[in-house]
């Protein structure tokens, strides 16, 4: 290496290093900044991408509608590859940009766990709509986490309600066998305490069948299911694990109508390629399903896609995971809107103010209808102590061609049963971390 | 210093060695006396290197025993042999290519290191003192072999002749009582050979080290060794002082008939 090359590489290095330092924007930002953690590559790309597209399309729609009371949204993607350390790096990189991040939504239980420790320090709320830690519903302890619309414990409880209904009452659960086929990670393990508790309560047997990441090897799992012939199989997978499970169920002849998936196992990529083979398979729906006819979707098509500004492909708009992303995005935006009501309309909100907004969210039917969410979801109302805001879930079934809601479709989780578990688990967390839970008085501030 | 040739210190009895079906050594016995230079000769494939490998335990013979200073071994292992003061050089030079000359020779002092891992990690009292003391010893060997100028050179960069010398140096750093030399002069030019001969004789003379050597070059062997064993196709066909061996008809027909 001669001197010139050395100099060249040295200058390249400096260039690279300077590009590392995030450009700090001026303190008084004009725009509300939404960092977007996504994964469009790797093992879970097929599921991560539509979610991200929905998320961003909605932000674009808000801008097209004139912003949040006139405040425009800017956003930036960062690829996490569903890996915790990449997620943390993205978080650190984006959190201070453009006057500070509004809210983070990592779409990964692992990243959520890591950020739960960091968010309180940085004062940025985390929305984990339909994932994350179930006990973070308790806003007194998890002051910055918002598992809006539902947690895994809600899902597990509703799944059992559904089985009970099919059997003709909870009494008939006694002596039944329910197998949980789960992604072997914190995500997959979340429902286990609830299932075991319910098993004790109603006298059914829970069989746990873990599937290693990424979930393409399930032969042994389904041989075991064939051997034990459980009455129902609850599928708690993500990405390719879901379609693999359905294929294996098909090839071992396990009836698909006795299978029920969590809402992360109930989207198009999970069943599309199995098609007829997945007919009769049901999944929980985080309120919404595929919603091609919703007004908000039509708005996006006319106000975003028609102008050639769509993030993904047009066919994808309105699909299940797309809608999940869209809803998550909407909740964040509404948090900002609510915060503006208190801290000043037309101003850019800080993370702390947005937290107040999310804690006092009250989306009633009228508001939802006005925003174009009629029929997509039910009203949500949060409080300082309840960061979930709704425990309603629907059930959908794959008819070989598309997802359909089954009737009666709405279920509500048994809060009387879940709340003590939430309190216990969050209490344990508070004790470990030496946190003092907020009292209702402190919430008012 | 003058070391008289003494009693037998190494005695091999009826050693046989085979690899799979191939017999490398068949029923070989011979002895080595203290302070002598003992040569093993024979054509290619006669089993000379195998013989050395049996003595210091790299190969395990199927039959026979090795008696070292009155102690009987059915088989040696390299560690025991090293402990007992046997060191050796290699035909194809088995230096540690990733290290420099000093470090290669320092490995020869390995058995004499007393400090433990923790002390070494902290470069702490005993470890430090030991390193320096052994370094001094190694420098003596370096002086003896006249390789001061290359002491910090990675061995891979040295020419062949010098590598051979470092290989010898590493063996000497062990302060062995018995030194096994596997073709120490193979591939050298006349000058290098002369140097090597001088070193071998000096080692034997100054330190009284017993030397067992394998060599191709007949002239050299006959000049420097006290007694010679002749192998052919894994069998012993001659044993005695150079003159006796030269006179043996069997040896002449098998080996000396072919000039080298």
């Amino acid at each position, binding site marked *: 290496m001669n001197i010139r090359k050395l100099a060249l590489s040295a200058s390249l290095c400096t260039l690279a290093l300077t590009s590392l330092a995030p450009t700090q924007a001026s303190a008084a930002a004009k725009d509300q900044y939404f960092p977007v953690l996504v994964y469009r590559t790797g093992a879970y790309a097929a599921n991560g991408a539509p979610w991200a597209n929905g998320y961003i399309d909605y932000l674009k729609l808000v801008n097209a509608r004139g912003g949040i009371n006139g405040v425009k949204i800017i956003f930036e993607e960062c690829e996490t590859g569903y890996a915790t350390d990449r997620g943390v790096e993205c978080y650190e990189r984006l959190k201070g940009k453009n006057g500070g991040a509004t809210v983070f939504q990592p779409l990964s239980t692992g990243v959520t766990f890591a950020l739960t420790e960091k968010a309180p320090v940085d004062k940025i709320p985390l929305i984990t709509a339909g994932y994350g830690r179930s006990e973070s519903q308790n806003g007194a302890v998890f002051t910055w986490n918002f598992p809006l619309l539902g947690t895994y414990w809600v899902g597990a409880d509703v799944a059992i309600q559904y089985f009970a209904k099919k059997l003709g009452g909870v009494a008939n659960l006694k002596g039944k066998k329910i197998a949980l086929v789960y992604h072997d990670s914190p995500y997959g393990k979340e429902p286990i305490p609830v299932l075991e508790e319910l098993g004790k309560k109603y006298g059914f047997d829970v069989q746990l069948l873990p599937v290693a990441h990424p979930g393409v090897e399930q032969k042994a799992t389904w041989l075991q299911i064939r051997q034990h012939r459980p009455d129902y199989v609850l599928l708690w997978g993500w990405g390719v694990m879901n379609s693999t499970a359905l294929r294996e169920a098909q090839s071992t002849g396990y009836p698909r109508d006795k299978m029920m998936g969590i809402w992360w196992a109930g989207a198009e990529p999970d069943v599309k390629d199995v098609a007829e083979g997945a007919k009769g398979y049901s999944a929980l729906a985080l309120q919404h399903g595929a919603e091609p006819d919703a007004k908000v979707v039509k708005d996006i098509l006319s106000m975003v896609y028609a102008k050639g500004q769509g993030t993904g492909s047009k066919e994808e708009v309105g699909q299940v995971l797309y809608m999940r992303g869209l809803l998550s995005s909407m909740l964040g935006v509404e948090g900002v809107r609510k915060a503006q009501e208190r801290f000043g309309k037309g101003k850019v909100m800080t993370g702390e103010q947005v937290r107040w907004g999310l804690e006092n969210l009250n989306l009633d039917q009228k508001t939802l209808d006005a925003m174009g969410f009629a029929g997509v979801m039910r009203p949500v109302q949060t409080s300082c102590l309840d960061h979930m805001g709704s425990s309603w879930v629907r059930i959908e079934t794959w008819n070989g061609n598309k997802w359909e809601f089954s009737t009666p479709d709405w279920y509500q989780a048994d809060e009387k049963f879940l709340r003590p578990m939430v309190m216990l688990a969050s209490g344990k967390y508070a004790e470990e971390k030496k946190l003092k839970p907020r009292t209702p008085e402190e919430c008012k501030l | 210093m003058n070391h008289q040739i003494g009693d037998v210190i190494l005695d091999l009895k009826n050693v046989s060695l085979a690899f799979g079906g191939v017999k490398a050594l068949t029923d070989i016995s011979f002895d080595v006396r203290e302070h002598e230079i003992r040569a093993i000769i024979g054509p290619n494939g006669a089993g000379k290197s195998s013989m050395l490998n049996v003595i210091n335990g*790299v190969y395990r013979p199927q039959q026979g025993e090795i008696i070292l200073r009155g102690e009987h071994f059915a088989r040696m292992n390299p560690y025991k042999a090293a402990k007992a003061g046997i060191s050796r050089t290699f035909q194809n030079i088995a230096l540690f290519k990733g*290290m420099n000359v000093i470090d290669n020779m320092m490995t020869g002092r*390995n058995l004499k290191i007393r400090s433990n891992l923790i002390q070494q990690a902290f470069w702490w009292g005993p470890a430090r003192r030991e390193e320096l003391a052994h370094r001094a010893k190694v420098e003596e060997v370096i002086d003896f072999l006249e390789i001061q100028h290359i002491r910090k050179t990675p061995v891979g960069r040295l020419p062949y002749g010098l590598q051979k010398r470092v290989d010898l140096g590493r063996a000497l750093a062990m302060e062995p009582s018995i030194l096994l030399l596997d073709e120490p002069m193979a591939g050298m030019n006349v000058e290098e050979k002369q140097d090597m001969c001088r070193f071998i004789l000096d080692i034997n003379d100054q330190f009284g080290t017993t030397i067992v050597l394998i060599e191709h070059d007949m002239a050299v062997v006959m000049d420097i060794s006290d007694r010679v064993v002749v192998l052919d196709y894994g069998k012993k066909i001659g044993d005695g002082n150079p003159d006796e061996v030269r006179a043996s008809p069997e040896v002449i027909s098998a080996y000396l008939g072919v000039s080298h």
Partner: protein
Amino acid sequence: MLYRENGQFKTTYAADQQIFPIAQDRWTILGILLIAFIAIPLLVDEYLFRAILIPFLILSLAAIGVNILVGYCGQITLGAGAFMAVGAYAAYNFHIRIEGLPLLVSILLGGLTSALVGIVFGIPSLRVRGLYLAVATLAAQFFTDWVFLRIPWFTDNSSSGSVSVSNLQVMGWQIDNPVSKYLFCLIFLTIFALLAKNMTRCAIGRQWMAIRDMDVAAEVIGIRPLFAKLSAFAVSSFFVGTAGALWGFIHLASWEPAAFSVDRSFQLLFMVIIGGLGTIMGSLFGAAFIVVLPIVLNQFLPALGGVFGIKISTAGVSHAELIIFGGLIVFFLIKEPHGIARLWSTGKEKLRLWPFPH
């Protein structure tokens, strides 16, 4: 001009056996340490600490451990992530189960536990070598992945299998902000790098290298492969385990077994090979390269695309990142199979002779 060693004569072996026998090197290192300990904490912003410097320090420590095993002792390992996991979870258990145990002790005990496990999984190295051994170490990887997912005791019966720690302090020094975390890791790395350097220039290091270069010859001069290999496994696992504990405690604060997956093992192996096998410095270079490169690419590519008026999608960036990353690895292996450390020392030698070409 500045880098000249003439005039510096060694009069004792002690002087000749210093870690940095050349005076300028000693000054440079001192300077770097001053910058690392004083200037950086004053100047650098939080993002660099959290996203780059702290991971870099911890992974450097792990890479030194891997380098001891792979670079110095010649035993390929694809299971380094497993030993990080052992270190992290062991430290976690000591931390929560023994009331009042100082943080430092917990972390070091985590490292020691990892060393013990390392010895157990090092046993196959006595029978198999090379690629076969590499695969044997993968067995350790998958086994520990499973253990920490499946046995609730190790995660203190946490329902999700994820664990977290908080309120870390050492003798009253709160380790909660980026600067203190950085300094804490930096102290670890400095001390451990020194220990590693000492070991590798002492008898034990020579034993490892002898086993690596020519195991038969090593045995013949009285080195026991059993001791040499297992001690390398133990020391290496100790380093890697300590790094794992730091990764869990200091960097993530909350983690699950996936943080130490087989990808991490590959990453660590990349570091030592790119950085340079058998050099402590190389481990640091490798860690820096592997930590920084993806982040740089990730930010650099969209900017570069912007210059040419191309908008690169997030997916496009990460695909390009994969391609460039893989390509650079291959390029490095072809151009300099001995790693960045070799480039460094070649550069130094050139500088020493400058302006003469030879």
